[in-house]
């Protein structure tokens, strides 16, 4: 009893700093953002209030819901594309490559994930332009020029720049951890290669794949650079809406409404995905 009651200075030294820090600079900002969604802006100044005008205003506007639907759609589409495009590469790295090759591949793919996404997007802008590199190359084989900037295609290329390396890494690591004897067993029992992928590899990597897809979705859903610079923001996504509302007009409360809606959506998607990921399939035996 005595030991428990004693104030453990050593333990608290390691435990407390982060609690205080995160309360002050993480929980504080997020909670305050929810609070300001109830404030009102008068004469370009935010004044404290407890009103639902911003909510009413944003949620009754057609452009908000258009933007919401478009953002959901394009983020889901890009997550799906990233997962599908990554799969053959990840499969190759997981099953056909040696341990050393796989390590190199992951090592290399981690690098772009942590290097300026902004500059990479700008580089795509130059590559995809009407008279840019890609159209010039296509011109040599008598194709094009295609309009790739300010289109959905441009936005998707931007999203993929962000998500594809991550999708390949997560898929590769997931599949590399599968017990190889299970796959050999399926082969020996006469399972065709594609059936092996469908009925053995994919079910065994379900959790990792759902987490990978979730990350791809979150990254695309929250990104404003790709739809802004490569998509031309003709159809503004929710992040662009936040940006515009905050930077021009000082309408922080309305931007907060959009941000809260985004967070609610992300939490719903994340919880559903994680529930799916860890659900044991019906009829499965331990």
């Amino acid at each position, binding site marked *: 009893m005595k030991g428990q009651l004693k104030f453990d200075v*050593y*333990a608290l*030294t*390691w*435990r407390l*700093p*982060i*609690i205080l*820090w*995160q309360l002050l*600079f*993480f*929980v*504080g*900002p*997020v909670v*305050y*953002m929810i609070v*300001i969604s109830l404030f009102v802006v008068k004469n370009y100044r935010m004044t404290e209030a407890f009103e639902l005008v911003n909510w009413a205003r944003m949620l009754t506007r057609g452009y908000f819901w258009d933007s919401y639907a478009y953002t959901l759609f394009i983020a889901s589409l890009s997550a799906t594309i990233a997962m599908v495009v990554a799969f*053959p*590469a990840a*499969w*190759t790295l997981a099953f*056909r490559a040696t341990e050393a090759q796989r390590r190199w*591949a992951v090592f290399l793919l981690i*690098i*772009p994930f*942590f*290097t*300026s*996404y*902004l*500059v*990479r*997007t*700008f*580089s795509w802008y*130059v*590559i995809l332009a009407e*008279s*840019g*590199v890609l159209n*010039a*190359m296509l011109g040599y084989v008598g194709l094009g020029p295609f309009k790739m900037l300010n289109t959905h295609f441009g936005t998707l290329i931007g999203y*993929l720049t962000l998500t*594809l*390396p991550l999708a390949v890494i997560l898929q590769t690591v997931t599949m590399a951890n599968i017990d190889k004897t299970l796959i050999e067993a399926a082969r020996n029992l006469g399972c065709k290669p594609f059936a092996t992928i469908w009925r053995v590899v994919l079910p065994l990597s379900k959790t990792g794949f759902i987490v990978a897809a979730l990350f791809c979705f*979150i990254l695309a859903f*929250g*990104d404003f650079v790709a739809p802004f610079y490569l998509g031309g923001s003709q159809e503004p996504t929710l*992040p662009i809406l936040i940006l515009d509302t*905050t930077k021009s007009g000082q309408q*922080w409360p309305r*931007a*907060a409404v959009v*941000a809260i809606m*985004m*967070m609610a959506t*992300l939490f719903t998607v*994340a919880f559903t995905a994680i529930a799916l990921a860890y659900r044991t399939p019906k009829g499965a035996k331990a």
Partner: protein
Amino acid sequence: MKGRGLNIALCLYVGLIFIFVFAPIIFSLIFSFNSQRFPTIPLGEFSTEWYVKIFNDEDVWKAVRNSVIVSSSTAVLATILGFCTAYSDFRYNFRFKGPYLALILLPPTIPLIIMALAMLAWLSRIGMSGQLWSIILAHSVLTAPFAMAIIRLRLHQMDPDLEAAAWNLGGTEWQAMRHVIVPFCAPAIVSALCLTAAVSFDEFAVAWFVSGLNKTVPIVILEIVQGNIDPTVNAIGTFVFLTSMTLVVLAQVIFLSRQIKSHS
């Protein structure tokens, strides 16, 4: 024979993925030495014009200085916070440990534009926005989870009895920390410093919102890009790529090399 054809096709496919991933970085490098205002193929002449231009630009230098201050301070702060959390998680079981870990690990899953708005509103409320250190505060929250993850991975490789052995030999907890835990974690700490510095060096959304007039390098890039096409971006971009790639490669090499050594 069929197997070989398939193998070649798959290898080509992996190659294509790598080209897609690295194309923007490589083209940025090529264009930065290209004389054309609007780069395309065939390339123009070799030129260092854009580098000379940014070299003589005072705003760029100021931004570089700001970025160095922000990313190095962030790295130190985030690594200390990450280390404390990783060690608490490794050593102790306590009530509300789940929420405790969530508190530090959640920030990177929230879109940066949302964090940017929340940080801007909150920091202005408490009178801390528009300063260089506002960016440092915000970045420390965003990058600490990376430091925590790296150091936690390293602690996972440590035999918990090692610390207990130090106590049995008469050391205090603080001495065990200083002579056992910290040296064991040293490679992970260095690697966390590099990685958090790289993330902070490249972050633009939150920095742009809370920095006021103190521009960092990504904010300068953002402003140039918003105007007309300006090839100086490729020169600055190449500098940014080199910096963050060096940091990320260092982070990985330092962490992995020690791991392989301790396995053998």
